[in-house]
Protein backbone atom coordinates (compact mmCIF):
# COMPACT_ATOMS: atom_id res chain seq x y z
CA UNK A 1 0.00 0.00 0.00
CA UNK A 2 1.07 3.58 -0.61
CA UNK A 3 1.96 5.58 2.47
CA UNK A 4 -0.55 8.23 3.48
CA UNK A 5 -3.23 7.00 1.10
CA UNK A 6 -6.14 5.23 2.68
CA UNK A 7 -7.72 2.33 0.87
CA UNK A 8 -11.15 3.59 -0.27
CA UNK A 9 -14.19 1.98 1.30
CA UNK A 10 -16.17 -0.09 -1.20
CA UNK A 11 -19.95 0.09 -0.87
CA UNK A 12 -21.69 -2.80 -2.61
CA UNK A 13 -25.46 -2.22 -2.74
CA UNK A 14 -27.52 -5.16 -3.97
CA UNK A 15 -30.71 -3.23 -4.73
CA UNK A 16 -31.61 0.28 -5.87
CA UNK A 17 -33.12 1.12 -2.49
CA UNK A 18 -29.84 0.15 -0.81
CA UNK A 19 -28.05 2.32 -3.34
CA UNK A 20 -30.37 5.25 -2.58
CA UNK A 21 -29.55 5.03 1.12
CA UNK A 22 -25.80 4.88 0.47
CA UNK A 23 -25.86 7.67 -2.12
CA UNK A 24 -27.73 10.02 0.22
CA UNK A 25 -25.33 9.27 3.07
CA UNK A 26 -22.03 9.37 1.16
CA UNK A 27 -22.57 12.29 -1.19
CA UNK A 28 -18.94 12.44 -2.40
CA UNK A 29 -18.68 8.72 -3.17
CA UNK A 30 -17.50 7.74 -6.65
CA UNK A 31 -19.92 5.64 -8.71
CA UNK A 32 -18.28 2.60 -10.32
CA UNK A 33 -19.85 0.94 -13.37
CA UNK A 34 -17.35 -0.92 -15.61
CA UNK A 35 -14.39 1.22 -14.59
CA UNK A 36 -12.76 1.24 -18.05
CA UNK A 37 -12.72 5.04 -18.30
CA UNK A 38 -11.90 5.74 -14.65
CA UNK A 39 -8.98 3.33 -14.60
CA UNK A 40 -7.52 4.55 -17.87
CA UNK A 41 -6.94 8.03 -16.40
CA UNK A 42 -3.26 8.82 -15.82
CA UNK A 43 -3.80 9.98 -12.24
CA UNK A 44 -6.15 7.15 -11.28
CA UNK A 45 -3.81 5.37 -8.86
CA UNK A 46 -2.65 6.15 -6.26
CA UNK A 47 -5.21 8.84 -5.42
CA UNK A 48 -7.48 9.78 -2.56
CA UNK A 49 -11.19 9.01 -3.05
CA UNK A 50 -13.47 10.76 -0.55
CA UNK A 51 -16.42 8.79 0.82
CA UNK A 52 -15.28 5.67 -1.01
CA UNK A 53 -16.58 3.89 -4.09
CA UNK A 54 -20.11 2.66 -4.76
CA UNK A 55 -19.80 -0.48 -6.88
CA UNK A 56 -22.90 -0.76 -9.08
CA UNK A 57 -21.95 -4.26 -10.23
CA UNK A 58 -24.09 -5.98 -7.60
CA UNK A 59 -27.42 -4.29 -8.49
CA UNK A 60 -29.35 -6.80 -10.59
CA UNK A 61 -32.10 -4.26 -11.42
CA UNK A 62 -29.55 -2.40 -13.54
CA UNK A 63 -28.61 -5.44 -15.59
CA UNK A 64 -31.90 -6.19 -17.33
CA UNK A 65 -32.94 -5.83 -20.95
CA UNK A 66 -36.67 -5.74 -21.59
CA UNK A 67 -38.62 -5.22 -24.77
CA UNK A 68 -42.22 -4.51 -25.71
CA UNK A 69 -43.90 -3.49 -28.99
CA UNK A 70 -42.78 0.11 -28.79
CA UNK A 71 -39.35 0.19 -27.15
CA UNK A 72 -36.39 -1.66 -25.71
CA UNK A 73 -35.22 -0.81 -22.20
CA UNK A 74 -31.61 -1.47 -21.32
CA UNK A 75 -30.27 -1.39 -17.77
CA UNK A 76 -27.29 0.91 -17.37
CA UNK A 77 -25.06 -1.92 -16.09
CA UNK A 78 -25.60 -4.13 -19.14
CA UNK A 79 -22.23 -4.57 -20.81
CA UNK A 80 -21.58 -3.79 -24.48
CA UNK A 81 -20.96 -7.52 -25.10
CA UNK A 82 -24.22 -8.59 -23.47
CA UNK A 83 -26.18 -6.02 -25.45
CA UNK A 84 -24.52 -7.06 -28.67
CA UNK A 85 -25.35 -10.73 -28.09
CA UNK A 86 -28.87 -10.05 -26.89
CA UNK A 87 -29.69 -7.41 -29.41
CA UNK A 88 -29.48 -9.24 -32.71
CA UNK A 89 -33.24 -9.39 -33.08
CA UNK A 90 -34.31 -6.35 -31.09
CA UNK A 91 -31.86 -3.57 -31.81
CA UNK A 92 -31.40 -1.43 -34.91
CA UNK A 93 -28.45 -2.35 -37.16
CA UNK A 94 -26.77 0.97 -36.51
CA UNK A 95 -26.62 0.29 -32.77
CA UNK A 96 -25.11 -3.14 -33.29
CA UNK A 97 -22.53 -1.70 -35.61
CA UNK A 98 -21.74 0.96 -33.02
CA UNK A 99 -21.31 -1.61 -30.27
CA UNK A 100 -18.97 -3.65 -32.44
CA UNK A 101 -16.72 -0.69 -33.15
CA UNK A 102 -16.75 0.50 -29.53
CA UNK A 103 -13.72 -1.56 -28.55
CA UNK A 104 -12.24 -5.02 -28.96
CA UNK A 105 -14.18 -7.96 -27.57
CA UNK A 106 -11.82 -8.18 -24.59
CA UNK A 107 -12.71 -4.64 -23.50
CA UNK A 108 -16.39 -4.86 -24.55
CA UNK A 109 -16.95 -7.41 -21.79
CA UNK A 110 -16.20 -4.64 -19.32
CA UNK A 111 -17.72 -1.52 -20.88
CA UNK A 112 -21.18 -0.81 -19.49
CA UNK A 113 -23.81 1.15 -21.40
CA UNK A 114 -24.43 3.60 -18.55
CA UNK A 115 -20.72 4.05 -17.90
CA UNK A 116 -20.05 4.84 -21.54
CA UNK A 117 -22.82 7.45 -21.63
CA UNK A 118 -21.75 9.07 -18.36
CA UNK A 119 -18.08 9.75 -19.13
CA UNK A 120 -17.77 13.40 -18.08
CA UNK A 121 -15.60 14.88 -20.85
CA UNK A 122 -15.27 12.57 -23.88
CA UNK A 123 -18.19 11.50 -26.05
CA UNK A 124 -17.77 8.12 -27.64
CA UNK A 125 -19.64 6.25 -30.35
CA UNK A 126 -22.54 5.04 -28.22
CA UNK A 127 -23.70 8.56 -27.26
CA UNK A 128 -23.59 9.57 -30.94
CA UNK A 129 -25.80 6.73 -32.12
CA UNK A 130 -28.25 6.84 -29.21
CA UNK A 131 -28.67 10.59 -29.75
CA UNK A 132 -29.95 10.09 -33.32
CA UNK A 133 -32.15 7.16 -32.28
CA UNK A 134 -34.00 9.55 -29.94
CA UNK A 135 -33.12 7.33 -26.98
CA UNK A 136 -33.99 8.55 -23.51
CA UNK A 137 -32.37 7.78 -20.17
CA UNK A 138 -33.88 7.55 -16.72
CA UNK A 139 -31.85 9.68 -14.35
CA UNK A 140 -32.26 9.56 -10.60
CA UNK A 141 -31.21 12.72 -8.78
CA UNK A 142 -30.08 12.70 -5.15
CA UNK A 143 -30.39 16.09 -3.52
CA UNK A 144 -31.20 17.37 -0.03
CA UNK A 145 -32.01 13.87 1.19
CA UNK A 146 -34.55 13.31 -1.59
CA UNK A 147 -34.54 11.10 -4.67
CA UNK A 148 -36.29 12.23 -7.85
CA UNK A 149 -36.47 10.51 -11.21
CA UNK A 150 -36.61 12.02 -14.72
CA UNK A 151 -36.49 10.76 -18.30
CA UNK A 152 -34.07 12.84 -20.38
CA UNK A 153 -33.22 12.59 -24.07
CA UNK A 154 -29.66 11.35 -24.58
CA UNK A 155 -28.96 14.30 -26.91
CA UNK A 156 -29.86 16.70 -24.07
CA UNK A 157 -27.40 15.10 -21.64
CA UNK A 158 -24.42 16.84 -23.23
CA UNK A 159 -23.42 20.39 -24.10
CA UNK A 160 -22.17 21.39 -27.58
CA UNK A 161 -18.61 20.38 -26.67
CA UNK A 162 -19.76 16.95 -25.54
CA UNK A 163 -19.37 17.49 -21.80
CA UNK A 164 -21.83 15.69 -19.56
CA UNK A 165 -24.35 18.13 -18.10
CA UNK A 166 -25.28 15.89 -15.17
CA UNK A 167 -23.47 16.11 -11.90
CA UNK A 168 -22.51 12.44 -11.78
CA UNK A 169 -21.90 12.57 -8.03
CA UNK A 170 -25.55 13.36 -7.42
CA UNK A 171 -27.21 11.44 -10.22
CA UNK A 172 -27.53 7.86 -11.40
CA UNK A 173 -28.51 6.65 -14.87
CA UNK A 174 -30.63 3.55 -14.38
CA UNK A 175 -32.22 2.67 -17.74
CA UNK A 176 -31.97 3.63 -21.40
CA UNK A 177 -35.07 3.45 -23.56
CA UNK A 178 -34.84 3.12 -27.33
CA UNK A 179 -37.97 3.43 -29.45
CA UNK A 180 -38.44 0.79 -32.15
CA UNK A 181 -39.69 3.27 -34.75
CA UNK A 182 -36.38 3.93 -36.46
CA UNK A 183 -35.51 4.98 -40.00
CA UNK A 184 -35.00 2.61 -42.91
CA UNK A 185 -31.65 4.16 -43.88
CA UNK A 186 -28.92 4.12 -41.27
CA UNK A 187 -25.20 4.75 -41.49
CA UNK A 188 -22.49 4.79 -38.85
CA UNK A 189 -18.83 5.70 -39.34
CA UNK A 190 -15.93 5.99 -36.99
CA UNK A 191 -12.51 7.10 -38.18
CA UNK A 192 -9.51 6.61 -35.85
CA UNK A 193 -9.57 5.47 -32.25
CA UNK A 194 -11.35 8.03 -30.03
CA UNK A 195 -9.13 7.20 -27.03
CA UNK A 196 -5.74 6.74 -28.66
CA UNK A 197 -6.08 9.33 -31.41
CA UNK A 198 -8.57 11.93 -30.20
CA UNK A 199 -7.22 14.73 -32.43
CA UNK A 200 -7.99 12.90 -35.66
CA UNK A 201 -11.11 11.00 -34.69
CA UNK A 202 -14.54 11.57 -36.22
CA UNK A 203 -17.68 9.65 -35.24
CA UNK A 204 -20.77 10.03 -37.39
CA UNK A 205 -24.26 8.55 -37.17
CA UNK A 206 -27.14 9.14 -39.57
CA UNK A 207 -30.65 7.81 -39.91
CA UNK A 208 -33.43 8.72 -42.29
CA UNK A 209 -36.94 7.61 -42.97
CA UNK A 210 -38.20 7.58 -46.56
CA UNK A 211 -41.78 7.84 -47.68
CA UNK A 212 -42.11 7.02 -51.36
CA UNK A 213 -39.36 9.17 -52.86
CA UNK A 214 -39.22 11.80 -50.13
CA UNK A 215 -37.12 12.05 -47.01
CA UNK A 216 -39.75 12.26 -44.28
CA UNK A 217 -37.25 12.40 -41.40
CA UNK A 218 -33.47 12.81 -41.25
CA UNK A 219 -31.30 12.89 -38.14
CA UNK A 220 -27.56 12.98 -37.77
CA UNK A 221 -24.91 13.58 -35.17
CA UNK A 222 -21.26 14.30 -35.82
CA UNK A 223 -18.93 13.87 -32.90
CA UNK A 224 -15.32 14.96 -32.46
CA UNK A 225 -14.41 13.38 -29.10
CA UNK A 226 -13.67 15.93 -26.35
CA UNK A 227 -14.19 18.78 -28.87
CA UNK A 228 -17.69 18.80 -30.32
CA UNK A 229 -20.94 16.89 -30.14
CA UNK A 230 -22.89 18.39 -33.00
CA UNK A 231 -26.52 17.89 -33.96
CA UNK A 232 -27.93 20.44 -36.37
CA UNK A 233 -31.67 21.00 -36.31
CA UNK A 234 -31.30 23.47 -39.22
CA UNK A 235 -29.64 21.00 -41.55
CA UNK A 236 -31.94 18.19 -40.43
CA UNK A 237 -34.96 20.27 -41.34
CA UNK A 238 -33.33 21.22 -44.66
CA UNK A 239 -32.88 17.54 -45.46
CA UNK A 240 -36.34 16.54 -44.29
CA UNK A 241 -38.81 16.91 -47.13
CA UNK A 242 -36.16 16.66 -49.86
CA UNK A 243 -37.12 14.65 -52.90
CA UNK A 244 -34.83 11.70 -53.55
CA UNK A 245 -32.37 11.50 -55.16
CA UNK A 246 -30.98 14.79 -53.83
CA UNK A 247 -29.19 16.73 -56.55
CA UNK A 248 -25.36 16.41 -56.23
CA UNK A 249 -25.00 20.20 -56.11
CA UNK A 250 -27.44 20.34 -53.22
CA UNK A 251 -25.50 17.55 -51.45
CA UNK A 252 -22.33 19.55 -51.94
CA UNK A 253 -23.82 22.79 -50.65
CA UNK A 254 -25.37 21.13 -47.58
CA UNK A 255 -22.07 19.45 -46.70
CA UNK A 256 -20.29 22.83 -46.86
CA UNK A 257 -23.04 24.34 -44.71
CA UNK A 258 -22.20 21.69 -42.13
CA UNK A 259 -18.54 22.69 -42.25
CA UNK A 260 -19.49 26.36 -41.83
CA UNK A 261 -21.66 25.52 -38.83
CA UNK A 262 -18.93 23.43 -37.23
CA UNK A 263 -16.28 26.10 -37.78
CA UNK A 264 -18.54 28.79 -36.32
CA UNK A 265 -19.53 26.86 -33.21
CA UNK A 266 -16.40 24.85 -32.43
CA UNK A 267 -13.05 26.50 -32.90
CA UNK A 268 -10.79 23.63 -31.84
CA UNK A 269 -11.70 21.05 -34.51
CA UNK A 270 -8.68 20.38 -36.73
CA UNK A 271 -8.82 20.83 -40.52
CA UNK A 272 -8.31 17.09 -40.99
CA UNK A 273 -11.31 16.34 -38.79
CA UNK A 274 -13.45 18.92 -40.60
CA UNK A 275 -12.58 17.51 -44.02
CA UNK A 276 -13.17 13.95 -42.80
CA UNK A 277 -16.52 14.96 -41.31
CA UNK A 278 -17.59 16.71 -44.51
CA UNK A 279 -16.65 13.78 -46.74
CA UNK A 280 -18.39 11.26 -44.49
CA UNK A 281 -21.54 13.40 -44.49
CA UNK A 282 -21.42 13.85 -48.25
CA UNK A 283 -20.82 10.17 -48.95
CA UNK A 284 -23.73 9.27 -46.66
CA UNK A 285 -26.07 11.46 -48.70
CA UNK A 286 -24.72 9.92 -51.93
CA UNK A 287 -25.32 6.46 -50.44
CA UNK A 288 -28.88 7.51 -49.64
CA UNK A 289 -29.32 8.59 -53.25
CA UNK A 290 -27.82 5.35 -54.53
CA UNK A 291 -30.15 3.27 -52.38
CA UNK A 292 -33.14 5.26 -53.58
CA UNK A 293 -32.16 4.79 -57.22
CA UNK A 294 -31.72 1.04 -56.72
CA UNK A 295 -35.13 0.55 -55.12
Amino acid sequence: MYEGIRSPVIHTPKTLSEFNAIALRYTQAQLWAGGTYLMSQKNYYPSEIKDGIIDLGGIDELKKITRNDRFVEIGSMVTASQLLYAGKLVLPDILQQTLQTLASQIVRHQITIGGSLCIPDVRLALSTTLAILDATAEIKHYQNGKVSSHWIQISKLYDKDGNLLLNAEKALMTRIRIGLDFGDFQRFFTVEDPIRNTDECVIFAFQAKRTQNTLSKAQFCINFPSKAFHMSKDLESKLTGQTLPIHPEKVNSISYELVAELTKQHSNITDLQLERGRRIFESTLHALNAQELQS
Partner: protein
Amino acid sequence: MKIECTIDTKALSLSVNSNKPLSLMLMEDVGNRSLMSHCKGEACGNCIVLLNGEAVLSCIIPAFRLKDATITTFDSYQKTRQCRDIERAYAKTGNTPCPNCYASKTLIIESILQGLTNSRTNRMPNPMTNRSQHEDNASEMLNKQDIIQELSLNTCQCMDMTELLEIVEIALTFRRRKRVRRN
Protein backbone atom coordinates in the same frame (compact mmCIF):
# COMPACT_ATOMS: atom_id res chain seq x y z
CA MET B 1 -8.59 -4.40 1.89
CA LYS B 2 -8.08 -8.15 2.10
CA ILE B 3 -8.53 -9.94 -1.21
CA GLU B 4 -8.71 -13.70 -1.46
CA CYS B 5 -8.13 -15.01 -4.93
CA THR B 6 -6.28 -17.65 -6.88
CA ILE B 7 -3.34 -16.48 -8.93
CA ASP B 8 -1.60 -19.04 -11.12
CA THR B 9 -3.18 -21.94 -9.19
CA LYS B 10 -1.99 -20.54 -5.84
CA ALA B 11 -4.67 -19.49 -3.36
CA LEU B 12 -3.56 -16.12 -2.00
CA SER B 13 -4.81 -13.66 0.58
CA LEU B 14 -3.52 -10.20 -0.29
CA SER B 15 -3.79 -6.97 1.66
CA VAL B 16 -3.95 -4.19 -0.93
CA ASN B 17 -5.66 -0.85 -1.60
CA SER B 18 -9.19 -1.66 -2.74
CA ASN B 19 -8.86 0.34 -5.99
CA LYS B 20 -5.40 -0.90 -6.95
CA PRO B 21 -5.21 -2.12 -10.56
CA LEU B 22 -4.65 -5.85 -11.00
CA SER B 23 -1.58 -5.19 -13.16
CA LEU B 24 0.12 -3.32 -10.29
CA MET B 25 -0.96 -5.99 -7.81
CA LEU B 26 0.64 -8.66 -9.94
CA MET B 27 3.85 -6.66 -10.34
CA GLU B 28 4.24 -5.28 -6.81
CA ASP B 29 2.46 -7.71 -4.52
CA VAL B 30 2.81 -11.03 -6.33
CA GLY B 31 6.12 -10.51 -8.13
CA ASN B 32 4.85 -11.70 -11.48
CA ARG B 33 7.56 -11.77 -14.14
CA SER B 34 5.45 -11.70 -17.30
CA LEU B 35 4.08 -8.19 -16.63
CA MET B 36 6.81 -5.68 -17.19
CA SER B 37 5.21 -2.25 -17.21
CA HIS B 38 2.22 -0.26 -16.05
CA CYS B 39 1.14 2.08 -18.85
CA LYS B 40 -1.12 4.31 -16.67
CA GLY B 41 -3.94 4.57 -19.17
CA GLU B 42 -1.89 4.60 -22.37
CA ALA B 43 -3.85 1.53 -23.51
CA CYS B 44 -0.70 -0.32 -24.59
CA GLY B 45 -2.36 -3.72 -24.31
CA ASN B 46 0.68 -5.32 -22.68
CA CYS B 47 -1.02 -6.46 -19.50
CA ILE B 48 -3.44 -9.16 -20.66
CA VAL B 49 -4.24 -11.91 -18.14
CA LEU B 50 -7.01 -14.48 -17.98
CA LEU B 51 -9.60 -13.63 -15.35
CA ASN B 52 -11.88 -16.60 -14.68
CA GLY B 53 -10.77 -17.98 -18.05
CA GLU B 54 -11.53 -14.80 -19.99
CA ALA B 55 -8.88 -12.44 -21.36
CA VAL B 56 -8.91 -8.99 -19.73
CA LEU B 57 -6.67 -5.94 -19.57
CA SER B 58 -5.37 -6.20 -16.02
CA CYS B 59 -4.74 -2.42 -15.79
CA ILE B 60 -8.49 -1.75 -15.84
CA ILE B 61 -9.51 -4.35 -13.25
CA PRO B 62 -9.62 -2.97 -9.69
CA ALA B 63 -8.70 -5.12 -6.69
CA PHE B 64 -12.23 -4.99 -5.23
CA ARG B 65 -13.59 -6.87 -8.26
CA LEU B 66 -11.23 -9.79 -7.61
CA LYS B 67 -12.89 -11.48 -4.64
CA ASP B 68 -12.64 -15.26 -5.17
CA ALA B 69 -11.44 -14.75 -8.74
CA THR B 70 -9.12 -17.08 -10.60
CA ILE B 71 -6.33 -15.26 -12.39
CA THR B 72 -4.04 -16.93 -14.87
CA THR B 73 -1.01 -14.97 -15.98
CA PHE B 74 1.34 -15.90 -18.78
CA ASP B 75 3.71 -17.42 -16.16
CA SER B 76 1.39 -20.37 -15.68
CA TYR B 77 -0.36 -20.25 -19.05
CA GLN B 78 2.92 -20.94 -20.86
CA LYS B 79 3.05 -24.36 -19.18
CA THR B 80 -0.32 -25.43 -20.57
CA ARG B 81 -1.09 -27.53 -23.65
CA GLN B 82 -3.09 -24.66 -25.16
CA CYS B 83 0.03 -22.52 -25.24
CA ARG B 84 1.82 -25.23 -27.27
CA ASP B 85 -0.62 -24.67 -30.18
CA ILE B 86 0.36 -21.02 -30.37
CA GLU B 87 4.07 -21.67 -29.86
CA ARG B 88 3.98 -24.25 -32.67
CA ALA B 89 2.27 -21.67 -34.88
CA TYR B 90 5.04 -19.16 -34.06
CA ALA B 91 7.63 -21.77 -34.95
CA LYS B 92 5.88 -22.78 -38.16
CA THR B 93 5.59 -19.22 -39.48
CA GLY B 94 9.04 -18.25 -38.23
CA ASN B 95 7.58 -15.10 -36.65
CA THR B 96 7.65 -14.55 -32.92
CA PRO B 97 6.51 -11.44 -31.02
CA CYS B 98 9.21 -9.39 -29.26
CA PRO B 99 9.86 -10.09 -25.54
CA ASN B 100 7.86 -6.99 -24.52
CA CYS B 101 4.58 -8.13 -26.00
CA TYR B 102 5.11 -11.91 -26.24
CA ALA B 103 2.94 -12.69 -23.20
CA SER B 104 0.10 -10.36 -24.14
CA LYS B 105 -0.05 -11.24 -27.83
CA THR B 106 -0.06 -14.94 -26.95
CA LEU B 107 -2.95 -14.46 -24.51
CA ILE B 108 -4.89 -12.37 -27.05
CA ILE B 109 -4.43 -15.15 -29.61
CA GLU B 110 -5.62 -17.64 -26.98
CA SER B 111 -8.74 -15.52 -26.44
CA ILE B 112 -9.38 -15.46 -30.20
CA LEU B 113 -8.90 -19.22 -30.45
CA GLN B 114 -11.34 -19.74 -27.59
CA GLY B 115 -13.90 -17.58 -29.41
CA LEU B 116 -13.36 -19.44 -32.66
CA THR B 117 -13.43 -22.93 -31.20
CA ASN B 118 -16.29 -21.99 -28.91
CA SER B 119 -14.63 -23.53 -25.92
CA ARG B 120 -15.05 -20.79 -23.40
CA THR B 121 -16.31 -21.72 -19.98
CA ASN B 122 -17.64 -19.75 -17.03
CA ARG B 123 -19.71 -17.32 -19.05
CA MET B 124 -22.07 -14.64 -17.82
CA PRO B 125 -25.75 -15.28 -18.54
CA ASN B 126 -27.35 -13.23 -21.27
CA PRO B 127 -29.82 -10.87 -19.50
CA MET B 128 -32.38 -10.98 -22.30
CA THR B 129 -32.66 -14.68 -22.95
CA ASN B 130 -31.06 -16.25 -19.90
CA ARG B 131 -28.99 -18.32 -22.28
CA SER B 132 -25.28 -18.36 -21.72
CA GLN B 133 -23.02 -16.38 -24.01
CA HIS B 134 -21.51 -19.75 -24.81
CA GLU B 135 -24.67 -20.63 -26.74
CA ASP B 136 -24.87 -17.19 -28.29
CA ASN B 137 -21.28 -17.48 -29.44
CA ALA B 138 -22.18 -20.53 -31.49
CA SER B 139 -23.57 -18.21 -34.10
CA GLU B 140 -21.07 -15.45 -33.37
CA MET B 141 -18.03 -16.74 -35.23
CA LEU B 142 -15.31 -14.15 -35.27
CA ASN B 143 -14.58 -12.87 -38.74
CA LYS B 144 -11.30 -11.50 -40.02
CA GLN B 145 -12.19 -7.93 -39.14
CA ASP B 146 -13.01 -8.92 -35.55
CA ILE B 147 -9.72 -10.80 -35.26
CA ILE B 148 -7.83 -7.72 -36.46
CA GLN B 149 -9.75 -5.62 -33.92
CA GLU B 150 -8.73 -8.02 -31.14
CA LEU B 151 -5.10 -8.12 -32.20
CA SER B 152 -4.96 -4.32 -32.42
CA LEU B 153 -5.51 -4.18 -28.66
CA ASN B 154 -1.77 -4.62 -28.30
CA THR B 155 -0.05 -1.59 -29.80
CA CYS B 156 3.45 -3.10 -30.11
CA GLN B 157 4.56 -2.83 -33.75
CA CYS B 158 6.96 -5.78 -33.76
CA MET B 159 4.77 -7.83 -36.13
CA ASP B 160 2.43 -6.86 -38.90
CA MET B 161 -1.20 -7.91 -39.07
CA THR B 162 -0.71 -10.40 -41.94
CA GLU B 163 1.83 -12.32 -39.86
CA LEU B 164 -0.45 -12.33 -36.84
CA LEU B 165 -3.43 -13.50 -38.89
CA GLU B 166 -1.34 -16.35 -40.29
CA ILE B 167 -0.34 -17.38 -36.76
CA VAL B 168 -3.99 -17.35 -35.63
CA GLU B 169 -4.97 -19.47 -38.62
CA ILE B 170 -2.25 -22.08 -38.03
CA ALA B 171 -2.82 -22.17 -34.26
CA LEU B 172 -6.52 -22.69 -34.93
CA THR B 173 -5.72 -25.69 -37.13
CA PHE B 174 -3.60 -27.21 -34.34
CA ARG B 175 -6.31 -26.51 -31.77
CA ARG B 176 -9.06 -28.07 -33.91
CA ARG B 177 -6.97 -31.16 -34.61
CA LYS B 178 -6.44 -31.58 -30.89
CA ARG B 179 -10.19 -31.29 -30.24
CA VAL B 180 -10.99 -33.84 -32.95
CA ARG B 181 -8.51 -36.31 -31.46
CA ARG B 182 -9.94 -35.78 -27.98
CA ASN B 183 -13.48 -36.44 -29.25
